[in-house]
C-alpha cells in the first residue's frame, strides 16, 4: 500500500479492525533485532515479545499514516506464552479506544499475536496524533 493510500490513524473510529496479517519471526529476523537493540541475552527458540510487538507496530504502518506530530506515548505488553521462532503467527489489530481533545486524537491500538492454538502476546499502544481533516 502506498503512503498516499493510507489513512491517518486519527481517522479510525473505536472498534475499527485492521486487516489481519500473517508472518513468521525467523531466526535471522530475531538475530537482526537483538543485534540492533544491543540485547546479548540468549533466548533460545523463543523470540523476545517486544520483537513481535515492534514488528506488529511496523506492519500497522502499512495500513495507516502517522501524521507529523504523532507521538507514541504509552505501551502495554502482556506476555501470555512463549513466541516461537519460525512458527506461523497471526496478528490482529483494532482500535480499542479513541478520544479527542483540543484537536489531538488519542488512539489506543490493541494487537494480538497468536499461533495456531493461542494468543501469545497482547499489546496496547497509545498514540497521540493531530486530528484528521474533516
Amino acid at each position, binding site marked *: 500500500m502506498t503512503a498516499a493510500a493510507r489513512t491517518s490513524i486519527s481517522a479510525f473510529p473505536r472498534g475499527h479492525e485492521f486487516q489481519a496479517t500473517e508472518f513468521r519471526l525467523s531466526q535471522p*529476523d530475531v538475530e*537482526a*533485532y537483538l*543485534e*540492533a*537493540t*544491543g*540485547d546479548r*541475552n540468549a*533466548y533460545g527458540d*523463543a523470540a*523476545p*515479545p*517486544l520483537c513481535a*510487538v*515492534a*514488528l506488529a*507496530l*511496523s*506492519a500497522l*504502518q502499512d495500513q495507516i499514516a*502517522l501524521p*507529523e506530530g504523532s*507521538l*507514541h*506515548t*504509552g*505501551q*502495554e*505488553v*502482556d*506476555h*501470555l*506464552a*512463549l*513466541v516461537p521462532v519460525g512458527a506461523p503467527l497471526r496478528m490482529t489489530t483494532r482500535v480499542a479506544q479513541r478520544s479527542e481533545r483540543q484537536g489531538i486524537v488519542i488512539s489506543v491500538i490493541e494487537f494480538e499475536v497468536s499461533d495456531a492454538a493461542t494468543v501469545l502476546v497482547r499489546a496496547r499502544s497509545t498514540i497521540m496524533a493531530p486530528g484528521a481533516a474533516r
Partner: protein
Amino acid sequence: MSTPVAPVMRTLTQAQLHAYADASGDHNPIHVDPAFAATTPFGGTIAHGMLVLTLIGDMMFAAHGPAWLASGRLKVRFKAPTRPGDTVTASAGEAKQSGEVTEYAVQCANQRGEVLIEGRASVLAPA
C-alpha cells in the same frame, strides 16, 4: 526472597537507530533522517520508543529468564525523547510480591537523570 534485577545500561547511536529501523521495519524519518528531524520540534533524530523499551525487556529477562517471556507484563509511558549519544540506564525498584506475582516500578533514564520511560513490570514467580 525476591529476584534481584540488575540495571542495564547502553549508549544509543544513530547507527543503532538505523539498524533498529531495518530490523523492525519502522523507518519513520524522525528516527533516521537527520535533515528532516532537524526541522521538527525535536531538532534532531530521536530513538524509537520501542528500541529504548528493549532495555527494560533485556533487564527483566536477565533477572527472570523464560518466566518473563511467558508471563511478563509491562505498562509504561514514554515521557521524554532519547537522542543519539544518550546513555540510557534501565532500572527496577524494590520488588513487591502479591501472591504469585512479583511487580516492580521500572524506568529508563538518561545520563542527565531525565526519566525517558516510566511504568511497571510484573512477572509470575517461577514454580
